[in-house]
């Protein structure tokens, strides 16, 4: 890390030691392999580029998720949120989705957002599961605080795991009170919701070394379902 000024140092939150997220490969319904790995601060600009066109897509609350994620990614890049991490899902090196969150303390995690670009293959479910895996298995936390901003998220997290209500806790994303995934619920859900293989074959890892973006048109088309054929 480059040297920073005293003032900049004062503006940055103290950082906790965060374990690395070991990459994994997931075989999707399409037969394609999606590599899930952590994203570095240097990769944030390309992620912002992917998210940018979604700021105006109202369908399925993409606008609010994209806008908040945009700010969270900037905060990650510029050291303005404490202990944040970002995971990306890449299919043949092309961004399929991303998730982020942060560590509140050694025992508690805070899930932020899950954004799927390649829809219809449960990419969001896989990435959310990877995020929970990171908190519980790699960071060895006791629980993760979670809210959903769309009905899809509510079905995927609150119902499918299922999460417990922790209504006395205010989630950092504001709005509704928090739900929580405790460690034991995670392990009960793991056989049916958490997938992936390690180590990732070299060939797949190499393809996932850098992040390529689908075209802006393809991103909007994927998330909004707009295609030729009318109506």
């Amino acid at each position: 890390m480059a040297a920073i000024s005293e003032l900049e140092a004062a503006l940055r939150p103290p950082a906790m030691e965060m374990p690395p997220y070991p990459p994994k490969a997931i075989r999707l319904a399409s037969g394609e392999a999606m590599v899930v790995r952590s994203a570095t601060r240097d990769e944030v600009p390309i992620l912002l580029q992917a998210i940018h066109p979604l700021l105006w897509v109202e369908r399925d609350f993409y606008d609010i998720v994209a806008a908040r994620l945009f700010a969270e990614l900037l905060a990650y890049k510029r050291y303005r949120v404490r202990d944040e991490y970002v995971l990306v899902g890449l299919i043949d090196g092309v961004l399929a989705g991303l998730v982020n969150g942060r560590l509140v303390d050694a025992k508690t995690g805070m899930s932020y957002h899950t954004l799927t670009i390649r829809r219809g293959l449960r990419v969001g479910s896989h990435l959310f599961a990877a995020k929970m895996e990171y908190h519980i298995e790699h960071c060895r936390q006791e629980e993760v605080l979670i809210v959903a901003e769309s009905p899809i998220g509510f079905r995927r997290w609150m119902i499918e795991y299922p999460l417990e209500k922790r209504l006395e806790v205010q989630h950092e994303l504001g709005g509704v009170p928090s739900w929580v995934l405790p460690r034991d619920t995670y392990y009960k859900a793991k056989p049916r919701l958490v997938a992936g293989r390690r180590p990732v074959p070299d060939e797949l890892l190499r393809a996932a070394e850098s992040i390529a973006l689908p075209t802006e048109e393809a991103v909007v088309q994927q998330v909004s379902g707009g295609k030729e054929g009318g109506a």
Partner: protein
Amino acid sequence: MKAVYIAGAGMTKFGRSEWPLIPLAGAASLAALRDANLGKIPVDGVVVANMGAARINHQTALGSALADYLALCPATAEAVENGPASGASAFKIGCQAIASGMADAVLVTGVERMRVVDGLEGTDFVATLSQPDVEYIYGVTLPSLAGMFARLFMDRHGVERKHLAMIAIKNHENAMENPYAHIHQTITMEGILTAPEAVVNNPPIAEPLHLFDCCPVSDGAASLVLVSEAVAAKLGGRSVRVAGIGQATDSHAVHEREDPTDLKAVRIASEKAFALADLKPKDVDVVELHDAFTILELAESEAAGFYKPGTAHKAVERGETRRTGKLPVNPCGGLKAKGHPVGATGVAQLVELTWQLRGEAKGRQVKGAKVAYACNFGGFGNNVVATVLRREGA
């Protein structure tokens, strides 16, 4: 009956539509009317198929609404609600109007806009077709009925989940060639069944049926222009003839059937349609089945007479039902991948078959198709309409 011809066919892309109900129906109707090119020949009647508008779109009397929207007044107008068989029922009524001599040109349009409600409400709305006192009241849904049916059918005939997966894979592959299909995504056996990740990719919906055994919830519209022989002659050339239609009902509650795996209404409706057409199942070149669940493609193909009971899954294994196989089934992607806007489905099946018989199905064209069959499956098999179409001159 007097001969009935299909002079025009059109549909919207299935999926999620931002368009209101009547403009959605109007888009498909205009495509069909443009295709028919009726010129100064008036449209005598409009029949609209729909299942849920009164409940989920808060709109009724769709026939009158569409006739006015398309400036077709004073044409006669009706709306038909017959569950998921609404589409082919409306088609049958349109045919009857022409066959009886009461009309020379009828527009039949199926439309549904289901994505305005969430999945739970959508599932509940479709479940209202079940028997209220002994099914719905106990929480029966269409996926749960299909799950119970699948378990019994698979156990009885030695069908395995891999056979259902083969059907899903085939239909997704076919839909890739259909610009109107809801889902444009190929799937693989590894991804949905054999890989360790398949448990997450393809979760159970109603065992033994999993996510990729079930059709999506879709919006969409499809439309046909039916004409009399006299009008068809004026229009010239490429008309498709309605060779036969059959319809049959079965007990409302599935458990009251002597054999719940015997789709009696499919069998009887198909026999009637083939008898009217003076054709046999072996004469058929291309088939559209109502695969709201993959298991139904197997069961219907047997009940309709294409395969002996308990053998259709072997035909699937041999690849016979692929687009290039001996009996192509659901070349458009079926309900499984093309989508299933319930009221539109029966009409959309016939739109696809019209294009197939005219040789206009492009990348999904079944070579040399002359005779086509469709099964529109209402309720859980308690009201079925079967249709046989024939290319003129074939």
